[in-house]
């Protein structure tokens, strides 16, 4: 440790054991909102979720069809690249595994597309194997628009910008393609435990 900030010391006792909080993060109790534009308002009658790209046949769900899929209750910690972590967040969502059930694909990558135009990319392996959901309830209530409702991606093992709000489509791809923040220099993968905040970290 070479640089010391004169007169700086920890002001708060650690709010959680260190194995719960990745390096450089602090724990918050409220739920900050971060997004780059206005919050899109999508009526449930108009809402659809699509699975497109490198698939044998594109799929699409209406709100009714989507919420009829078997859902799971998930309690996980989420970590935002702007340094806050929120522990034990409780969601209801459909596992991405269930959306991909029976789908033939040779894709290695995915891009999540949102209402409003946001995108984010991740390896397909990070969306499968019980690691990712499309969440539509938070703390027992319908997910509020400012937090990504009607439905958002939930990929808690990566920084939270990968958990695209207002999810509209999952595009499966043979090649990787940077999403919105990734194109502005944020890390392509975004593992909070390896502190992959920006390109080159």
């Amino acid at each position: 440790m070479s640089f010391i900030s004169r007169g700086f010391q920890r002001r708060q006792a650690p709010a959680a054991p260190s194995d719960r909080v990745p390096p450089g993060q602090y724990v918050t109790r409220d739920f900050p909102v971060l997004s780059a534009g206005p919050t899109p308002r999508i009526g449930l009658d108009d809402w659809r979720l699509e699975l497109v790209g490198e698939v044998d046949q594109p799929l699409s769900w209406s709100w009714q069809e989507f919420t009829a899929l078997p859902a799971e209750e998930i309690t996980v910690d989420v970590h935002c690249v702007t340094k806050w972590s929120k522990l034990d967040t409780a969601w209801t969502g459909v596992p991405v595994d269930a959306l991909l059930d029976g789908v033939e694909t040779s894709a290695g990558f995915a891009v999540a597309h949102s209402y409003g135009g946001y995108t984010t990319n991740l390896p397909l392996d990070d969306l499968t194997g019980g690691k990712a959901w499309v969440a539509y309830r938070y703390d027992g209530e319908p997910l509020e628009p400012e937090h990504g409702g009607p439905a958002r991606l939930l990929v808690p093992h990566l920084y939270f910008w990968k958990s695209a709000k207002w999810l509209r489509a999952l595009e499966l791809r043979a090649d990787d393609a940077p999403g919105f923040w990734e194109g502005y220099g944020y890390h392509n993968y975004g593992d909070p435990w390896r502190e992959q905040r920006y390109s080159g970290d």
Partner: protein
Amino acid sequence: MARAAVLRRLTWAIAEVVHLVDETPRVRSLTLDVPDWPGHLPGHHIDVRLTAEDGYQAGRQYSIATPTDGTRVTITVERLDDGEVSPYLTDVLEVGDSVELRGPIGGYFVWEPSRGGPLQLVAGGSGIAPLMAMLRARLQARSDVPVRMLLSWRSGEDVIYADELNAVARDATGIEITHTFTRSAPDGWTGRTGRLDREALAELAWTPSERPLAYVCGPTGLVEAVASALVDLGHDPGRVLAERFGPTGG
């Protein structure tokens, strides 16, 4: 919108505090000299990292309040009493001290005169910082992009950059600045009070047919309300750019 992405590795630099300005009782501007600073666009931010003697580290992000100026970078920090980083920056740091930082970060919420306008700037409290970088860049470049700036403050003592804003409002052409106070207005204030709601925006902001580029920055409540109202009024959501900070900005 053209991307200004610079996909290079962001490395930590040790920056010296060269100038401090107490803007309000709670807000301080810090000018830092950053060796090898590559330059930035108005709207970019930096990561600041503090390290205690026992190795404990805490970091936060702060918007840059000035246009690119050699190796000088100025941030404007509001003290959050229960925060860990902001009270250090506002109360402990002195000229001659150093902090670690890296940047510039971002690239979407940025503006430079070549992007044109008209420019609609809307801020709540210390959310003015990145918009001030834009306003200052517009003045420095002697650009004629028309600007309307709407600023929401809790009270008179919370106004940041007050003298500079007053001078700009008085002297600059093509720049209109409107303040509103949501809790208590200064004595003798005959201007606006209350929140920047849909009605206020309909009256004060550029109209949708003028196709402004809108930048909205402040606490989540204000940004949600203003961005939604602009879209409701008919503005293109793709031309409404938002930067939000929550109460835990630290």
